[in-house]
């Protein structure tokens, strides 16, 4: 039998039982669409986090107190607190290292901010003036923190756009006095709205001189020291030098952790890449389910068309032809399902992007390819059993069932 004739025959069989065909096409398409949408979500999350992490600055090396890995919580640090503080002077000493462009000490805590009779909880970040350009923040009004001695606690503050909105509304905020903790500070600048940035909502920050923050929280240690290298290739040596310098200053004890933005980025990338793969794998189970459904539908077709199979045999069709006819039908059903699922999945990803514009929900090419290939393969694989059953029917018995 010619290929074109076989496809024609299979197509007639598919359209001849529209409900049965629609059901298996639907199942297959839901499977493929699930893979496309879920991997789009997973990969979107990866892109989102990577993008957010890149947004904290470029060529950054980050020093943090204690010998924790990049992995986060280490049980040792819970019992033995950091032996030596990471101080503002430590941070200042890094300024003179070769390859270092800028350094920003970072002390973080929560406090209250009050003005105009309104009060709210805020995250207070104590930094130097270099912090704002390093994080690529821009000022909507006013000016940056004064560029003076890091140990001087000038009573000034920059506030995020949302804080300004909540405390002052339409009235000008610049030059106003606010109370932060037990201090009275003058607002000298307002940040432009930027949105989310790695768990810290920049629009809800209050930025003050680092010495002021340390006094406010009664602490000498820094939360982080951000170091910006001159160039990307300089990052590893800068990291090495920072570690060396801090070790020297801490009497040879390596009690700080120095990580690079690249390394953190790569970790996130790997982690979320694996997540996407896992989610895609879970969605692929639905493809297997769809494959079983196609098999079921084809088995029903074989049962319902037993008489027809007997006829084809009587008309001289060899077993091979009958097997191929039913395989073609299964392949056609799964191909249709895969195509429809692909379109559905892309439409779903498009909808996600429309609903959450910040979230880059694009299904990765490998996932789309894998979903389509798996759909076709499972369809064929699960089509083999019904096709063989059809080909093995005894013609005399088959002809009696009509």
């Amino acid at each position, binding site marked *: *039998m010619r290929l074109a004739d076989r496809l024609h*025959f299979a197509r007639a069989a598919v359209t001849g039982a529209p409900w049965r065909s629609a059901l298996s096409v639907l199942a297959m398409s839901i499977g493929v669409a699930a893979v496309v949408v879920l991997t789009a979500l997973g990969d979107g999350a990866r892109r989102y986090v990577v993008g957010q992490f890149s947004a904290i600055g470029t060529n950054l090396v980050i020093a943090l107190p204690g010998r924790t890995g990049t992995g986060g919580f280490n049980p040792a640090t819970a019992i033995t607190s950091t032996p030596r503080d990471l101080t503002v002077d430590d941070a200042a000493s890094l300024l003179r290292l070769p390859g270092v462009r800028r350094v920003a000490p970072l002390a973080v805590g929560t406090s209250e901010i009050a003005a105009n009779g309104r009060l709210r909880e805020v995250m207070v970040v104590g930094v130097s003036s270099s912090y704002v350009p390093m994080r690529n923040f821009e000022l909507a009004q006013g000016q940056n923190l004064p560029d003076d001695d890091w140990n001087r606690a000038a009573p000034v503050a920059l506030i995020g756009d949302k804080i300004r909105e909540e405390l002052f509304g339409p009235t000008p905020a610049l030059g106003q006095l606010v109370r932060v903790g037990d201090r009275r500070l003058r607002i000298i600048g307002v940040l432009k709205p930027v949105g989310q940035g790695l768990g810290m909502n920049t629009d809800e920050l209050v930025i003050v001189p680092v010495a002021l923050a340390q006094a406010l929280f009664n602490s000498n240690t820094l939360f982080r020291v951000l170091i910006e290298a001159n160039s990307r290739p300089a990052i590893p040596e800068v990291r090495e030098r920072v570690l060396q310098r801090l070790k020297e200053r801490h009497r040879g004890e390596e009690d700080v952790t120095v990580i690079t933005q690249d390394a953190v980025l790569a970790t996130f990338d790997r982690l979320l890449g694996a997540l996407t793969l896992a989610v895609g794998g879970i969605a692929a189970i639905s493809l297997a389910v769809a494959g079983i459904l196609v098999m079921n539908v084809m088995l029903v077709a074989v049962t319902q068309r037993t008489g027809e199979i007997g006829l084809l045999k*009587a*008309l001289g*069709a060899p*077993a091979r032809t009958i097997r191929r006819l039913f395989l073609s039908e299964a392949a056609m059903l799964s191909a249709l399902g895969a195509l429809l699922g692909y379109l559905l999945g892309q439409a779903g990803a498009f909808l996600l992007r429309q609903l959450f514009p910040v979230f880059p929900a694009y299904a990765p090419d490998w996932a789309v390819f894998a979903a389509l290939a798996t759909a076709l393969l499972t369809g064929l694989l699960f089509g083999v059993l019904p096709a063989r059953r059809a080909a093995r029917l005894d013609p*005399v018995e088959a002809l009696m069932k009509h």
Partner: protein
Amino acid sequence: MPLIELQQIERRFQLGDTTVNALAGLNLRIDAGEYVAVMGPSGSGKSTLLNLLGLLDRPQSGTYRLENRDVTTLTVDEQAAVRSARIGFVFQSFHLVPRLSAAENIALPMTLAGIAPAERKARVAEALAAFGLSQRADHRPDQLSGGQRQRVAIARATIMRPALLLADEPTGNLDRHTGEEVVDLLEGLNAQGVTLVVVTHDPAMGARARRQLVMEDGRLKYDSLASDAGDAPR
């Protein structure tokens, strides 16, 4: 010239504990161009005989020679090839593929045999005209009358120009008038040289054949050719 030669054909079925002898020691010779009616009560083995002649079934022992070739030893696929080229079937319940048009149903044996579409088209058009179905080419079986359906089935059975046409109760599902038309059609084909074997319950139809076979318990009880002096079947 013999078309069919059956020698000592045995066909037994296992039904639970009992063995049924559907065909027992059957010897039969049918010449090319004959018109044979096979009659007998239900369970006499006439359907088994027809399936055997059509290579849909195999005997446990004995030989079946079709056109001087032993076809009992052929593989399943080789038998399928013989069916495709040399044997046509007409069934009581027509056995048309419901989703295909009349023309596509007639073309089905050629499609399965891989004959080129252009030739198929020409031969189907010829057959449609010959069977008075030209106006019905694009109709699906459920849009055809019983007589038209059986004409489509006969056109399909003869489209490969077989040597042997096997009809199993071809008029069983038709009223008297359309049944006669179908029989006329089959007899016309026989007149053109096709060997016709009809299984029937209908004595009137059986009487029209040039040769009558009556079967009972898997054996030939009566052959009008062998015993001209014997009892004529009622």
